């Protein structure tokens, strides 16, 4: 399977009409590959180009082609879920760029419209050229699988969104989080991979991975609490094991946010988003705890509420990178009437829902202790 994709990549990129994205010019230093066939078999040696001031356009274009082949050769196809691989194969079977775009538009046209209730900031992908919304939720039939919904006012972006929604829906969060953004190069659409606020595709993928991860964390917590709940002799009192919680969070973050090209961006976008929200809240950096307190107070009217920033316990592991100023992990202890009649899972879900914005802007995990006033006695 991998080799068939590789050889069709070769066919794709050797076609003279498909010249690569000129925006990549400046960022990649010049090199010459000894010959194309070596791309897939032996280690590549890089030679600096002879100093020629009049490097005309078309020669640079050739370089670009070779660089592209080099780049796509390094994509680990096994990290791409099967549905997405099928989509890639479909695009590769269509060599003409214009037809590819038509294909993309078809995908977009088939995407079911997003409920206007979700066309709000909480689901927006950051980027200034078109509006894109993405929503992730657990598959009702298979809680381990993540499903996505998306929409955009730009037809091409909608096509890309549809592609991602089709290709990623149904996969578990850990698989989704590992999908390398480079896969888009296999489609032959000349999509830039440079992280920037303008890169709709990259930002979409990052947001989907982030949301999938959040679902995973929520779900894992709920599972664990269910297990503990069934263990204790139904007194309603639940012992929170903060160390186990943190271990789980560490484990998830470590395995999914691998130091590949992909992980650079979530930190970039999450830091940038954080700055956005601080503008809105006017609190500046350091306001997260306050915001959590305010939010929970508003919604739960708790008898007792304690919010503690324990990010320092997680400083240094992959999940925290990029959120250098802490505020990634909190202990929340709340006693409120609102929890009455709600199972533990429902209580946790309630709190996570209230803190949606924070979760999108750098908050990684919560350790929750939610009791009703009667339980607290």
């Amino acid at each position, binding site marked *: 399977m991998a080799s068939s994709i590789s050889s069709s990549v070769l066919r794709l990129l050797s076609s*003279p*009409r*498909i*010249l690569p994205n*000129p925006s990549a010019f400046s960022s990649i230093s010049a090199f010459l590959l000894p010959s194309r066939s070596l791309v897939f078999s032996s280690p590549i040696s890089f030679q600096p180009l002879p100093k020629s001031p009049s490097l*005309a*356009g*078309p*020669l640079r*274009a*050739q370089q670009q*082609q070779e660089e592209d082949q080099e780049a796509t050769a390094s994509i680990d196809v096994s990290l791409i879920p099967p549905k997405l691989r099928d989509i890639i194969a479909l695009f590769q079977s269509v060599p003409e*760029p*214009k037809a590819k*775009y*038509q294909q993309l*538009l*078809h995908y977009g*046209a088939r995407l079911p419209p997003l409920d206007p209730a979700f066309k709000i900031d909480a689901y927006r992908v950051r980027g*200034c*050229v*078109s*509006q894109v919304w993405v929503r992730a939720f657990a598959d009702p039939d298979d809680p381990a699988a993540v499903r996505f919904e998306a929409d955009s*006012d*730009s*037809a*091409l*972006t909608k096509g890309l969104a549809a592609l991602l929604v089709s290709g990623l829906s149904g996969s578990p969060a850990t698989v989704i989080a590992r999908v390398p953004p480079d896969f888009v190069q296999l489609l032959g659409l*000349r999509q830039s991979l440079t992280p920037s606020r303008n890169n709709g595709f990259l930002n979409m993928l990052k947001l989907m991975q982030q949301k999938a991860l959040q679902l995973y964390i929520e779900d894992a917590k709920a599972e664990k609490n269910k297990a503990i709940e069934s263990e204790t002799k139904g007194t309603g009192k639940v012992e929170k094991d903060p160390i186990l919680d943190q271990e789980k969070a560490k484990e998830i973050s470590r395995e999914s946010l691998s130091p590949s090209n992909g992980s650079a961006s979530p930190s970039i976008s999450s830091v940038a988003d954080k700055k956005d929200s601080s503008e809105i809240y006017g609190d500046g950096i350091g306001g997260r705890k306050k915001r959590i307190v305010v939010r929970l107070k508003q919604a739960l009217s708790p008898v007792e509420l304690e919010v503690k920033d324990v990010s320092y316990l997680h400083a240094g592991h992959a999940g925290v990178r990029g959120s250098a100023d802490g505020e990634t992990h909190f202990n929340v202890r709340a006693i409120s009437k609102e929890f009455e009649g709600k199972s533990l899972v429902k209580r946790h879900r309630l709190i996570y829902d209230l803190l949606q914005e924070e979760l999108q802007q750098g908050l990684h995990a919560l350790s929750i202790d939610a009791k009703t006033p009667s339980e607290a006695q």
Partner: protein
Amino acid sequence: MAASLCHFPPAVSSSSSLFVGSKSRSLLLAVSPFKHFPSKSSISASLPWTRSYAVSNDAAAFSVASPSDLRESPSLGEITRPDFPILRQVVNGFNLVYFDNAATSQKPSSVIKALSEYYELYNSNVHRGVHYLSAKATDAYEEARNKVANFVNAADRREIIFTRNATEAINLVAYSWGALNLRPGDEIVLTIAEHHSSIVPWQIVAKKTGAVLKYVELTKEVPDLDQFKGLLSKNTKLVVAHHVSNVLGSVLPIDEIVDWSHKVGAKVLVDACQSVPHMVVDVQKLNVDFLVASSHKMCGPTGAGFLYGKINLLSSMPPFLGGGEMITDVFQDYSTYAEPPSRFEAGTPAIAEAIGLGAAIDYLSSIGMEKIHNYEKKLSEYLYYQLSSVPNIHIYGPAPSDTVHRAALCAFNVDNIHPTDIATFLDEQHGVAVRSGHHCAQPLHRALGVNASARASLYFYNTKEEVDTFIQALKDTIEFFTTAA
């Protein structure tokens, strides 16, 4: 059809393709519809491209040659193109059509040469040293200042302050003049069509000082001058206005605006980023108090821009950034400051860039701003009327005519197609570079009732043929999105 002659075949990727650029250019000259172009300014019915012109004779036929000149003469675009090496390239298989000049302009070889010569021959810190190289660098740097002063006809060379760009220049005025002179209740009048760089610094300083921002709205997609006059009062301390709008293409009557503003005792800051590169701008004639422009929009390097300010104003303003260069004496607890322009040029300046700007001014002056302006006027009309012929299109801003001058740029939207889709397809499938988004003018787009627009903006090295290519490409793009949907 003239348009099909302009659409070059995709480049061949062999080593002989090194010559594609020049080959295509000679192709252009060989089959150029220019050969058939009338030298008189009349619309001939036999010419294919004039058929799609709008009715009036105001849209004069495209001609640069004098009426009596019967041999075909190349346009300013054709003459100057060879000076810009970057334009000779193939993008996505098509010859590059660069229509994003309002964002940044391309640089002629002479400017690129000036930059590398500086570093190769006489790079040295300015104003500080005594040795040969530093004297040479200082001379070149100050000579660049003189060039800028002459270019905008400033009375005194000290009225030109080099900044990083126009945005920094506006911030300079906001933090220095603004912070000192604005009091609670003072009003700053801006138009809704201002660039973010002309709005945000004033929002920040207004918050600090208690001043209030008042906006001139649009009427028929241009700023409402009657409303503007109505907004002026004894509370108005500053008027911030663009000279040429980067979205609407409209031109404001700055001389009149300055007149009205001075009558109520308000100062005027003009954002001339889209005017200085394209026409003669005379600060004395306009009598503005402050004027800003960017080097990179006028064939100069990025990293340079300038603020023009009347010398008596600048002399009364406190420093913006502190550091070396802008001081006279430095003690432990306090320092005394230099006179303008040094007072506002802290630290080592962008020396090469300023010299590059000087070289750009030399280049522009060698062509002549009048000539550039006249050529662009015709290009603007051609672009506007050709675009108007595209179905379901809406172009923002005024229609050009004898009395209404419009810059050679068009921001537009096509019904039911997102501008980003248009810009992406134009680039990927036709090598045409336009911009899509809000062009740093979100309040304006909100006033126009849209999220974003596509914008094609031209400069004197663009040609009529490129406009034809663009229109053809745009029609193809629209067809693609309407049939594929």
